[in-house]
């Protein structure tokens, strides 16, 4: 069964090729069958492969399938090879299943668009293929191919409605900002190949363990550069600014790429190269700090957004911050657990938001929504479940188990401590506040004028409802595969992942403390919901009163703009850069390049003079060349 592994990325690739080749000639249902079907097949194969992997785990906990070697020269031997272990299996499981559900959803969602139906599915299929390549890659070369591939697809899909210039600009912004991280990662690759002489990930990690001293400069440099790549792709501080703007893409894209899968590539990268990070403890701590700061920063920013998708975007940044925090404190499996649960509920939330947006004729402003609970009960319940999971409502949602694990580990780990724990807990409070602010604004309250104008509002069709339902069930039920000590201590998930990632060892573990901390986390979640209830529902207008305060207005503006990072970067990088470019328009370096161009062109014209078109001139050329050649051969 494991030999079927190559089929998993092959199906979406075939879908992409088919759609680009003949997509324009297919009818929409045909496109839908090809587009969603290819990912569905790949999900089925993942299931088969996953079952046989778990039934009979291969020796060493990993299965390598080498398709072919690209070139084989002087030790440089990049292969098209896939590496399946518990880590990549978890990831591809999420990508194919959530990916399939989102494709299914798009079948209906994209039907409204006048054009680009097959283009959309072609890009989406290509994305899934690239993402799977990234996850399954056995060497960094192939991983880079997937990494750049998902970046490209993200760019194409953010700018999908390219006729609006703002969308194109958002796409460019995403591409350029992540490129900063990609450059760092590329440098890491060069450095690793130069130092260790291989790009094969497993061999590389092994050699790194032997050659690098823990805490040495080289290990720190490599880990820092890799972190740079991860931070860019996963929209963490300081490269988080692109993600909110990326919401310009169609909602399924936001769900698939900018919530569930691509943005977690950074998490995957760090987990995949965890040996390098353990060799650089300082960087690992930095990962935790970045995670904590990001989750707080994004949490505050989400509080004041009015666009429903931007709230979700900031919450994504914040939740990935949790994953980074978990990675930073060495709780590898906790990070992956949160990744999986997050993929379920965040996809659910985006799809739910998409359903709302769709029925409100592309209205994304929450202040213009309201009272949708009665109009769209199914969507409401699904959205509510997703929000519960996001806000980590205790016991009943999966989000509680995954997030609580991280919060507890932030305190309990050797690297962690009170500060990280406090940050994570504060983040949890913020999460439930902004989440339920969103729920109350959208679904409760009186229906706004705009909503009344559009009544009666219909529930979406089956292609949208099935993914919502499935994801809602998962958001509730998936938590039970990993239960804390206080609740029965079930470690199915971490036990599985520990075949690929190092086991987590807590330090302070005492039953009482853990219980206390869990209660605190639960209190933060529920307290947040209560707070919003009092502010939004119990006494309408109180929010406006707070917002009217001068200090609050300043804060709101700061948070609304995502802590002003855009303005900061604009002032710090873009403007000085443009200024330098303007000042240096005629500088020496330009002179150099222009001189090169000038000389080359001059040489071209001089050389062209020899092509006179006269036979006798050519014959003379040959004769002179003959004399010189023979002369040189004899003399030299």
């Amino acid at each position, binding site marked *: 069964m494991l030999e079927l592994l190559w089929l998993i990325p092959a199906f979406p690739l075939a879908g992409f090729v088919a759609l680009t080749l003949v997509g324009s000639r297919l009818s929409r249902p045909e496109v839908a069958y090809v587009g969603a079907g290819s990912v569905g097949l790949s999900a089925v194969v993942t299931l088969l492969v996953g079952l046989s992997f778990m039934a009979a785990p291969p020796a060493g906990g990993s299965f390598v399938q080498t398709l072919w070697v690209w070139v084989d020269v002087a030790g440089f031997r990049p292969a098209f090879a896939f590496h399946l272990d518990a880590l990549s299996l978890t990831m591809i499981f999420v990508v194919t299943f959530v990916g399939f559900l989102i494709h299914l959803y798009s079948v209906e969602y994209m039907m409204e668009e006048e054009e680009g139906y097959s283009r959309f599915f072609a890009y989406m299929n290509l994305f899934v293929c690239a993402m799977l390549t990234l996850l399954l890659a056995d060497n960094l070369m192939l991983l880079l191919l997937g990494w750049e591939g998902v970046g490209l697809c993200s760019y194409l899909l953010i700018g999908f409605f390219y006729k609006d210039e703002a969308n194109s600009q958002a796409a460019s912004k995403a591409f350029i900002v992540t490129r900063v991280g990609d450059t760092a990662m590329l440098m890491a690759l060069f450095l690793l190949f130069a130092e260790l002489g291989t790009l094969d990930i497993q061999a590389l990690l092994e050699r790194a363990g032997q050659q690098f001293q823990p805490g040495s400069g080289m290990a720190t440099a490599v880990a820092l550069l890799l972190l740079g790549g991860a931070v860019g792709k996963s929209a963490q501080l300081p490269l988080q600014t692109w993600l909110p703007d990326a919401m310009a893409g169609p909602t399924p894209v936001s769900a698939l790429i900018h919530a569930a899968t691509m943005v977690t590539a950074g998490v995957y990268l760090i987990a995949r190269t965890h040996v390098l990070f353990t060799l650089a403890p300082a960087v690992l701590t930095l990962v935790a700090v970045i995670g904590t700061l990001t989750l707080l920063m994004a949490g505050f920013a989400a509080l004041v957004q009015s666009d429903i998708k931007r709230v979700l975007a900031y919450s994504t940044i914040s939740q990935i911050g949790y994953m980074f925090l978990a990675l930073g404190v060495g709780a590898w499996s906790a990070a992956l657990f949160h990744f999986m649960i997050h993929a379920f509920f965040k996809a659910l939330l985006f799809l739910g938001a998409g359903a709302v947006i769709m029925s409100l004729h592309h209205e994304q402003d929450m202040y213009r929504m309201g009272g949708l609970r009665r109009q769209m009960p199914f969507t409401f319940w699904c959205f509510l479940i997703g929000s519960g999971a996001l806000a980590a409502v205790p016991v009943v949602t999966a989000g509680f188990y995954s997030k609580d694990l991280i919060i507890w580990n932030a305190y309990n780990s050797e690297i962690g401590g009170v500060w990280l724990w406090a940050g994570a807990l504060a983040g949890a409070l913020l999460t439930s506040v902004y989440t339920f602010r969103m729920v109350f604004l959208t679904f409760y309250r009186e229906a706004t004028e705009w909503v009344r104008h559009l009544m009666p509002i219909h529930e979406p069709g089956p292609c949208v409802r099935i993914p919502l339902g499935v994801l809602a069930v998962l958001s509730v039920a998936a938590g039970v595969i990993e239960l804390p000590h206080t609740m029965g201590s079930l470690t199915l998930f971490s036990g599985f992942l520990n075949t690929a990632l190092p086991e987590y060892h807590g330090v302070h573990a005492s039953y009482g403390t853990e219980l206390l901390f869990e209660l605190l986390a639960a209190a933060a979640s529920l307290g947040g919901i209560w707070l919003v209830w009092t502010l939004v529902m119990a006494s309408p207008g109180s929010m406006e009163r707070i917002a009217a305060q001068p200090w609050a207005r300043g804060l709101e503006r700061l948070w609304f703009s995502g802590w002003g990072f855009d303005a900061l970067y604009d002032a710090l990088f873009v403007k000085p850069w443009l200024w330098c470019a303007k000042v240096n328009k005629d500088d020496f370096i330009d002179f150099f390049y222009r001189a090169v161009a000038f000389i080359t062109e001059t040489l071209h014209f001089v050389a*062209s003079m020899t092509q006179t078109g006269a*036979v006798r001139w050519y014959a*003379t050329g040959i004769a002179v060349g003959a004399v010189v050649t023979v002369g040189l051969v004899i003399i030299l």
Partner: protein
Amino acid sequence: MLTEALTTSALLFVIGTFGVLVRRNAIIMFLCIELQLNAVNLALVAFSRYVGVEGQVFVFFVMTVAAAEAAVGLAIIISIFRHYRTVNVDNFNLLKW
């Protein structure tokens, strides 16, 4: 004797080469190329006296090839003359640069 033969044939070859370079008439240029080939023939026949029969056999083939080349060359030159009314190669320079 080998040196003399080589010198003669080299001289003939150089004369032929110069002919190709300085003459303008395509047919004469072609004749000069034939002269080059025949200079080599002379050398080959002379060498084969010392080192074996291969040289002489080669000469047969060279002669044949020269004839074929002359036939095709002449045909092309005729076509050119029909079209341009001249065989002066300096007039053919539509294609350049």
